[in-house]
């Protein structure tokens, strides 16, 4: 299974970014073989609107099944749901912390958008 974490870093000890659409990038972690790749999301950071939708398109290309982030706006939530990606939330810490919590089943899954559009 592939899990995407929102972050500005390129390693597992990087801090999480609690934004989804405007996160600078993603670490896409493959739990089947414990490898990860770094995905740039700068294009969504700079888009005037539709960042959450574009970010979803971005991670769909990597075959992501779940996303771990801090918050999610209404358009991003609709897009992620349509793409069949489950959303889990965390309050911060490092990507490694979030991965550990995810594996332990300690993260809450999100069933509706929790912030307004254009939240930064």
């Amino acid at each position, binding site marked *: 299974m592939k899990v995407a974490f929102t972050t500005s870093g390129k390693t597992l000890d990087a801090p999480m970014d609690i934004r989804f659409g405007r996160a600078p990038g993603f670490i896409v972690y493959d739990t089947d073989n414990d490898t990860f790749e770094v995905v740039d999301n700068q294009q969504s950071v700079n888009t005037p609107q539709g960042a959450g939708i574009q970010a979803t398109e971005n991670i769909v290309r990597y075959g992501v099944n779940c996303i771990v982030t801090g918050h999610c706006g209404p358009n991003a939530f609709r*897009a992620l749901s349509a793409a069949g990606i489950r959303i889990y939330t965390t309050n911060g810490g490092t990507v490694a912390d979030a991965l550990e919590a995810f594996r332990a089943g300690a993260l809450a899954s999100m069933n509706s958008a929790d912030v307004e559009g254009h939240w930064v």
Partner: protein
Amino acid sequence: MIIAVASGKGGTGKTTVSANLARSMGSGVQVIDCDVEEPNAHLFLRGRKMESEIVSIPVPEVDSSLCDACGECGRFCRFHAIVSFGSSPLVFPDLCHACGGCTLVCPRGAISEKGKRIGVVETSECDGVTLVQGRLDIGVAMAPPLIRAVKSKVQSDGHVILDAPPGTSCPVIATLRGADFVVLVTEPTPFGLHDLSLAVDMVRELSIPFGVVVNRMGVGDDRVHRFCREEGIAILMEIPDDRRIAEAYSRGELAVDALPEYCSHFATLLWNIREFRKSGGE
């Protein structure tokens, strides 16, 4: 002649110039308030409402029985207003710029268009001045289509004044297109100069002849004048920082009505614009 009144900075006096200029031109003038996010010319040109018309934009509607989820629509739309994740696409009407491109690229003809209301165009008459204004619905972010609808009321054989929104972004460009002349209103302050220089770049890019009106002369410094001199930009009019104008404004009165000596100022502005156009911008 279509005269657009614009500015980089907000609050420099676009509506003051537009409404006073219109009034000093006499009858048969159209004022088109293109600041559809917060129209305010009606505060000074208070007339009888003649007409109100709802404006809609076409947004996509997908017939999922025809869609084979090829994703062409989503790849085409740069605004992410339609997107497909291996199933019938999702539509985000608030992001749609109504270009119709998705309906054209769909190989299955699965996308049609339906109207989405964005606002109203209202027309009123006030002592020979016709005021047309757009009023964008609350929550709608797409001003240019409504601005184009407001501008469709322009009768270009007469005198038309386009009161532009502030700034230099899409709504301003939508307003200025087709204008014969642009009046850039500024104030002699560092902020005024900064945003004036952006507005000058914009108008030059659009290749429309333009000149500057300096409002509230007496405040600030002389940097706007120096800038205009160095750039070879004509200053068409200076409006003094006269407290009486502000007092009239606060009562919803035009300077030319409350303070008749200003009639000649605005007549001079019109004369300067005409001379400027005749001379080919020299």
